[in-house]
């Protein structure tokens, strides 16, 4: 009665559960797959790309999107863009931070410090919605983790602006983007060729900027990624060695007993 062997059951489980995608696509197309440098067991961020990506964020995205869980000091930390301390100080100082109240009970502005959180473009969510036709530009701190498809999805959205197909109705302030659910998005195409000038001389094509800023946002969402991969490899090597030793000891101990294990 070996109709169902263990192998078959496991195969069945794999077949059934592999295709599970919690949300069912409502006429969305699969995002473009990019071979990101930070994927895989030993994946790392491309440092120059992170620095360029920050420039794109600062000069383009940050006029609407906040990034409230990051601090300027993070930009100099290991595993991130790794700007030098001087650069981090300069970046922070270029922004006005509201502080206070002072001894007179007044709020005041001062230049930013590395310990400050990223300055938000709007004082609150309602203000951001009022300024953007009723749509809230989502906070970008964990945006990559908050979207099915992650980095590929963010990159695809940036690349997904196309001519509106004939017969496709769009309201005012709504744009066509083939990777968006329903193909409609309230953000106009944020990138165009040479919209910024990269400080490292790289040519600022839309594709280049999309890749750079996606890399930056992926780091922002998972600043621990490099440390996690590095520790993970060590942990796995250690566990596999220990498991082997324990397996050999087990064989030895059980050899005293006339039983299979």
């Amino acid at each position, binding site marked *: 009665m070996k109709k169902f062997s263990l192998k078959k059951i496991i195969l069945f489980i794999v077949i059934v559960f592999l295709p599970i995608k919690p949300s069912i696509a409502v006429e969305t197309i699969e995002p473009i797959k990019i071979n990101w440098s930070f994927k895989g067991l030993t994946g790392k961020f491309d440092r120059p790309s992170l620095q360029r990506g920050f420039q794109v964020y600062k000069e383009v995205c940050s006029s609407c999107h906040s990034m409230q869980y990051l601090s300027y000091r993070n930009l100099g930390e290991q595993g991130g863009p790794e700007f030098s301390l001087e650069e981090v100080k300069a970046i922070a100082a270029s922004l006005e931070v509201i502080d206070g109240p002072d001894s007179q009970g007044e709020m005041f502005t001062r230049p930013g410090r590395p310990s400050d959180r990223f300055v938000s473009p709007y004082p609150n969510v309602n203000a951001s919605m009022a300024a953007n036709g009723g749509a809230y530009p989502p906070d970008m701190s964990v945006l990559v983790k908050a979207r099915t498809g992650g980095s590929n999805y963010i990159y695809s959205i940036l690349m997904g602006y196309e001519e509106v197909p004939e017969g496709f109705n769009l309201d005012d302030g709504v744009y066509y983007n083939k990777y968006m659910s329903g193909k409609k998005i309230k953000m106009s195409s944020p990138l165009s060729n040479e919209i910024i000038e990269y400080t490292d001389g790289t040519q600022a094509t839309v594709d280049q900027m999309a890749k750079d800023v996606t890399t930056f946002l992926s780091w922002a969402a998972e600043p621990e990624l490099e440390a996690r991969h590095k520790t993970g490899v060590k942990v796995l090597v250690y566990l596999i060695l220990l498991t082997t030793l324990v397996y050999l000891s*087990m064989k030895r101990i059980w050899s005293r*007993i006339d039983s299979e294990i």
Partner: protein
Amino acid sequence: MSDHEYVPKSKAGKWFNDRLPLLSLASHLTDYPTPKNLNYWWTFGGILTFCLLTQIITGIVLAMHYVAHADLAFGSVEHIMRDVNYGWLIRYVHSNGASMFFLAVYIHIFRSLFYGSYKSPREVIWIIGLMIYLLMMAAAFMGYVLPWGQMSFWGATVITNLFSAIPLIGDSITTWLWGAYSVDNPTLNRFFSLHYLIPFLIVGLVVLHIWALHIPGNNNPIGIDVKKPSKDTVPFHPYITIKDGFALLMFMIIFSGFVFFAPNVLGHSDNYIQANPMVTPAHIVPEWYLLPFYAILRSVPDKLGGVILMFGSILILFVLPWLDTSKVRSAVFRPIYKQFYWIFLINVLMLGYMGAMPAEGIYLVCSRVGTVYYFLHFLVVMPVLGFLEKTDPIPMSISDPVLSGSVEPSLAKKDNEKI
């Protein structure tokens, strides 16, 4: 319990042991005679203990940094991920640990179903185990609410709303559970409190679970009673400890794979969006380990009916030892039950898949068929099989080889009953 009376060698040990026999307990635990033919499906008890301790230890540290407030909870989780030393590791171990805990508990339960470990004289072990499982689900559900993401909020809304299906007093009960007129800050606060409490209740039940186990001793793959201690048993230490340790390490390798290389695949991306009562996600899905029950809930068009069937699907397990009329424990000697077992397992997996799909069209039809079959398995198949099935010959002991025809099945059965 062990037959010999343990006497500590040292005078101090004897003095202490006479007052609190902890050393006797330790001796009992190390000598505990265990059937020597236990396979790897038996290692999940130890693995589950490891899971519970891991959740408690990581949870205590997380609670030192977490803020249970509707406005601050989401941000405090990001604070843990970014600013707390190794906070990301502790949180990922805790969140993936929940999934690994359930993976292990499901294997543990299905092992019991296959080898008939729930049957006499182990009914109480089984029932305590189910109580642990119920508490685990409550703890996991409340824990999932704490990060206060979109799935947290809406999952909590869906589940707490189930209680409103109770006639007459349902709405009052729901309001009472919330502490407000919707899922809100008071709900989050009490969930945090209960989430911290439940694991310690589980620890208490685990002690009872193991205590109850040590009265009749372990069941084993061939399901016969074993004389203890005898050549059919080995002392728990070192034989079972080393084997459990090996299995635990294998389990930890898989666990680490998730924690370090795919920490978010088992979660839902929507939970990285802060809870927003004004925006409902397109699909509200629970964590994977609750999906089969979610499918049962949604398969009934009537809300109250769905709630009754969902709770019924778990409560029916409590009476399983009495629904199963077969005297033979292990499915190894039950050719027909063995096939029904696999069909049941596939049915549960199928229900889990349907729980992740929208409740419409073919998915709904499959959920309904699966739900009906789930109950048929317990209410019809299990009681009837015991009378109709012709079981295979059972060996007299673990060490004795099974000579086909050497023992009449009826004889072996009688022998089993006697013991």
